[in-house]
């Protein structure tokens, strides 16, 4: 992945000073290839690092009847806003995968969790649960 990035930036840098149309097709092709490699990497890293299997640690501290990390997440087919409860639900395709950012996942290659704080309750939880 980093190799692709370098070649791309070299190409951008080597554009001559006098304005000339860049070789669009070549750039586009490279971008498409980059995109496809990136998608494969997301899947690979996601399976290894972000998928949550049922483990003993889930039921520590008296959480006997449920996973303390609240897995599996509820599937959300498409992101939506619920007017009645005044809350936002973001897309969840797979209930056993930790919330992640694709760039963070592929470039850093470690497990992480990223959450949008979209309600006052979520903010309080984030401020006091872990800290």
């Amino acid at each position, binding site marked *: 992945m980093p190799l692709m990035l370098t070649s791309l930036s070299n190409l951008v840098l080597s554009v001559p000073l006098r304005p000339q149309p860049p070789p669009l097709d070549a750039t586009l092709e490279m971008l498409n290839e980059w995109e496809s490699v990136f998608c494969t990497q997301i899947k690979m890293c996601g399976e290894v690092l972000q998928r949550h299997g049922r483990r003993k640690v889930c039921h520590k501290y008296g959480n006997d009847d449920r996973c303390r990390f609240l897995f599996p997440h509820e599937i959300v087919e498409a992101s939506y806003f619920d007017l009645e409860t005044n809350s936002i639900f973001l897309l969840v395709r797979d209930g056993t995968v930790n919330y992640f950012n694709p760039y963070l996942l592929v470039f850093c290659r470690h497990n992480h969790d990223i959450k949008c704080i979209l309600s006052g309750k979520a903010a309080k939880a984030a401020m006091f649960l*872990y800290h």
Partner: protein
Amino acid sequence: MDLYPNDGYLPGIEEGVIHDRQSDVEDVFKEETAGMSEHPAELLGSPSETPESEPLVVMLEKMGVADPKCDRMPGRLFTAAALRNLVPGGSELPDLVLHRGSTAVPEYGNPDLVPGMYPTLFPTGTSSFEIPNRTCAISFKKQAGYYLDLADRSFRYHHSFLFVVLNIIQRRASHLQTHFTVQRSKFETVATKLVAVKSNVLQSVVDHLENEGKYNSLTGEQKAALDLLKHVNTIAARIPGSQAGKFKVFMRNEIRSYCGFFGLPHLYITLNLSAAHSPIFQLLFGDETIDLSKRFPVLVSARERALRLAKDPVAGADFFNFCITSIFRYLFGWDYDKRESTPSGGIIGKVEAFYGSSEFTERGILHGHFLTWLLGGLNPAEVHDKMCDDDDFQKRFFLHSSKT
């Protein structure tokens, strides 16, 4: 027991020492200290410093066994030792004698303390901590950090140096950074009274309470001093790691202040780094064969990687620090020097502020939690209002959240 002096070494120890005159000092030294790299003591005799003369070797030359009870040595060794003792020689004391004393070894202002505890790390007994009148004064903490960052990793690999030094630093934090708080309304009266209390009165109160004396048997002056302390809260220093509870309260207050200033945070990020599997850690450990320009660098076995992490916890912490700063600098576009986002920002937009805390899992793996504020980010209530009123906003909002 009365026969033993209060201070000094055990009497008669020199009689239990048997001198070994057969083994060669240098050979034994080499055998005992065999390792991958040169022993620090060998550098002392470096030929470049003492050309054309005998290499200057500073070594402990008297070897032997001491057995105060005299029941584990074969008789012929004793006879041999006794015969040798007939031959006059210099001091018959061994080179290393464990002294005993009636008072504890002082922890403050005692440059001999750490080299005394770790003769293998300080083979010449110099370069200690807190040497008085050092040309350039250096704090205990800073010097400890410096020793752990030396190219020679003896200090990192030592099984207890790290822990003892951290313990000293934490104890000092609790000794020297404890302070009092008092209600603002009572500050003036309490402060003047507190300053007026004589230290010998306080000492007598302390003695009295330590000996489980009753409150009523205190004198008026003593009572007044004790009553004064009721208006005052003792605040222990924030000692990371040791008093987790108090430190947590301190962090919560800091987060509250951040929220007061920046509003509610927008993102809550947990970064769960794995040093044991990372090629970057292997390089920090000192494995120069790792080629980081490869997409999949070749690593040693998982067992070996775990052993490396256990051996060099300093490299583990360096790895954590390096990764976190890299993520914020290069992926999130944070300029550490200017303490603000770079003009172009990063993969989550422009960061306005972030607050992080590092924790150990119960397995001893470092991980970090970060609250992040984004420039131009909205409060959840504002987001909800816009969702209700503005269909276009809703569309744009979900456009980004459904892209994977």
